[in-house]
């Protein structure tokens, strides 16, 4: 399965670990579908950032597509 990258330089830092975020591969799932994507993640504690434009854009689109399967 190919990996789409949504990783983009960001000013957000992990507050707990005091670390900048870095691109990392993440498996996101919805209704039995699995996607490999690259997102910005805290390298220490794995806090994953889902930015607003991704959540309300591409993700919402795919969610609705899967819901109509």
């Amino acid at each position, binding site marked *: 399965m190919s990996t789409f990258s949504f990783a983009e330089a960001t*000013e*957000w*830092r*992990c*507050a*707990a670990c005091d670390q900048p*975020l870095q691109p990392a591969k*993440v*498996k*996101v*799932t*919805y*209704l039995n579908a699995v*996607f490999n994507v690259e997102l910005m*993640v805290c390298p220490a*504690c*794995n*806090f*994953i*950032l*889902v930015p*607003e434009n991704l*959540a*309300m854009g591409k*993700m*919402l689109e*795919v*969610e*609705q*597509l899967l*819901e*109509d*399967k």
Partner: protein
Amino acid sequence: MDQSQLRALEARCIQEEMPFCTASCPIHVDARGLMALLTRGELREARKILDRTMPFPEILGRICDQPCHPFCKRGEIGDPLWIGPLERYCVSVTDTVLKPPKLPVKGGAVAVLGAGFSGMTAALDLSRKGRPATLITARTRLGGSLPDRAGSLLPPEVFDQAEATLKRYGAEIVTGASLDRQTVAALLDKYDVLYFDWDDFTIDHLPFIPGTPDPISLALERDGCFGGGGVEDGKPFSIMHQAENGRRAALSMERYLQGVSLTAEREKEGACPTRMYTVTEGIPPASEIVPDNPIAGYTAEEAQREAARCIYCECLECVKKCAYLQEYKEYPKTLVRKIYNNLSIVQGNRSANKLTNSCSLCWQCTVICPYDFPVASACHAARQEMVASGHMPPSAHSFALEEMHYTLGENCALIRHQPGTTASRYLFFPGCQLTGTYPDTVERTYIFLTQHLEEGVGLFLSCCGAPADWAGQSALFTDVLADLTAQIRQMGNPTLIVACSSCLAAFGKYAPELTVVSLWEMLDELPLPEVLFDLPESPLTVHDPCTARYQEGVRASVRSICGKIGLPVAETTIGAELADCCGYGGLLQFANQPLGEKVATLKVSRSTTETGLVYCAMCRENLVGTETHIAHLLDYLFADPEKNPLVRAKVGLSGRHEHRSRLKSRLQSTLWQDPIGSPAPHRAIRLEADDETWALLNERLILMEDIQKVIHHAETTGRYLHNPANGRRLAAFKPAVVTYWAEYEPISDGYFLHRGYSHRMQLPEDRA
């Protein structure tokens, strides 16, 4: 729904029935289509319509005696259309455009005796069907009595053209034949099937007794012989009668050769009744256009004007009113087919899910439809099937269902006898939406009822379960209702006083064992409170909720109350049993937000005055969203006199969510003096945001409480992101299935929210 149920349902919508002209035309010429094309001056396309349906359009089109004329609907508002003369115009300015295909030859020896127009038609139809006919006449030419009758209306060359057509399809033409008894007897032996055209064949020459032809098949006494055409008893000669008989006979002869029933399923052949329903009200009348020169017939300009009088008869009465049907450009017949096909998809995209979930289940169309088409029950049943088969999109109704659970849960639900009593004669049931929108009004109304009714008025804060019903969650709905009725039974089966028309409808339909009365009918019986406002001078338009469609008593009481308190009211252009939905019905606004807004706007557009009055909490919420001044009737009776009922703002999802739980705890302490447990810690978080952010959250179906949970989780665990550049924090929390995100910053006594959003996709559990 199986195929036969679907077909029965589809058949109730008559939008695809023939218009009056086509039905009364014995060969069903599409006159409506013809009129449209002639109006637009598309003559070649118009000619195609005639070429497709008419035998020898160059003849029939010129002299049709238009039996359709008296049936044209235009006659109700002006004069019927002159369809025949318009066909004549069309045929005289065009040549044949379309040549219908000829089917492969199938054999069978076919003879037509007599070459009047019915014989010509029979020979042509049979030859096209691959049964080349031999057309025999004693005359020297085709047409029987026609050339003599039509005179100058038919140029002689049209018969040459007809002859060429017949030959092209393989017919053989024999002229000048002797058709005496002996020859005919020989022909009877030679051919498998024969047609006798009474316009050009003398009945005395038959070597057998024909009897009366069967009215459906035109079969004569003798097997394989058919007869028609000529002049009908007591009627003038009609060319259309010749065409109809020739066509009917050809079909019978074809069936005869195939050995199948001569009469089965032929009801729609020939002029027939139609179930078409066309409303002419509101269409301006228009008189016929008479040609300046009747002998020459219509000029181009006259023809165009006459054709333009056509009103294109169709039904679409329901579509004219319903924004949902308009949005999807469907009428119920095509709609239910899409919905059914969507249910039967095994693999691939179910592209009509949203369509199925966008009907507000309001029943307006059913009241309008001359055949009571029940779109609502079809959509509702489809939703139940989607839920049962696991194909209901989770996001369509989940917000509304979660809110229902919340309302039914310990935070909001309450059922108590009147303070200081242990029994209830009545039980006030304001419903979830009134409680969410106007908690203070609910409290005042309740207190009023306790003061004016005897033997105890209990209070029941809950939800009737309608959202589950609308979402197609039948099992859940049954559970909710069973639980409600059990609680009511425990209260000693008091009479339920119900404020909301949806609850009233749900109880009436699904819990008929309950004794239920509408709040409005109850108030109409009581001495009303003194109105503490300056009443408006100009009338408010009363918007009935769609759920009061079948509640005539409720609608009457509302108007009676207005009269008693002196509130001037006006009626909508479409209301009462035809009222539109406000967008909430059937959970439409959750499944299809933009359509929900359109529906609300449409409802408001039925106003006849500048301001409006509703008696359903959801109508108020949604109609206020259209920026019109709308008051709720309870506002005039029981609301805070400081607030003008016409300028109260929309409450919104979060507001309604908060109000429900706050009303419960407030009433517990003020009315029943109960000790109150402490609220969940996240509820104590104070949030600020600007109006746009609140509006966006509302649109995204995110509650303030969801955001409070995110912040509470972030601040107690220390797990959030931090932006050193602006001091903001970003955190996520997933209370159930949806993950909520909040971008916020701490302020002195709480937090300021900058953004809120959500997603349903799941991040890996171990990492989030």
